[in-house]
């Protein structure tokens, strides 16, 4: 551990703002790149299921 306390860890020696914004935005982008395909897949599967049901109805 290279920090004395938790407050020290958050402050990052006066560079806290820069470090935390870049980590925050980057991890958000990573999460977005996984979440979007999963959501799109769910929506597509629901649409397809509805289409199949409609078509199978006499």
């Amino acid at each position, binding site marked *: *551990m*290279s*920090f004395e306390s938790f407050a020290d*860890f958050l402050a*990052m*020696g*006066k*560079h*806290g703002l*820069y*470090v935390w*914004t*870049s*980590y925050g*935005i*980057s*991890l958000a*982008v*990573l999460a*977005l*790149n*996984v979440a979007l*395909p*999963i959501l*799109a*897949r769910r929506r*597509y*599967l*629901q649409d*397809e*299921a509805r289409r*199949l049901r409609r078509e199978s109805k006499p």
Partner: protein
Amino acid sequence: MNWTWFHKLGSPKWFYDISGRWLPWLSLAAALLIGVGTVWGLAFAPPDYQQGNSFRIIYIHVPAAILAQSCYVMLAVAGVVGLVWKMKLADVALQCAAPIGAWMTFVALLTGAVWGKPTWGAWWVWDARLTAMLILLFLYFGVIALGQSISNRDSAAKACAVLAIVGVINIPIIKYSVDWWNTLHQPATFKITEKPAMPAEMWVPLLIMVLGFYCFFAVSLLLRMRLEVLKRESRASWVKAEVERSL
């Protein structure tokens, strides 16, 4: 050498099954590696003697930049495979990987700019690496825009493949010319990643992060490709079975 696996890749169903089996393991690896790397890099790696704690941005900046560059090479490789062996899956891979590469380039540029503020005192400096990354972002935009503006799916994939191959031949030329331009205009700028031999406790988390980013790339790419394969094969019976199974 046995090439059956390569030709099996041409079958969408085979790809869908095998990628479904790999996906949980890859996701686990990506989450673990990125988690461990982030905590190690943020809390346990020693601060840089010159830049203090702002250097911790390296643990996302460098992996994102490496991924962004190798992703473009992957686009070109997929393009060659698609053009030479007419493999539909390579077309899918090309078009699904381009947005991820653009996002990674964006992350690398953004973290570079944020890192630049405490080190250089300015958000943007026309440093050779940053400028080359900016050009790479434009190249990604070109591939994405071309793919979206051609309505025929097969021609779009082929056109993107040609553009990606032309781009990948150009990348080394762009890189060297930008380096050369930079040394001409701005002598002796402070380079972000040039350090007198990093100690192990600094580069091990970096290595872990790079591996984690590659795993993340594989996960995101497979997710997108699986959806695209489902859409393209929507008439096939195995897709209908998959749709019914998933509900």
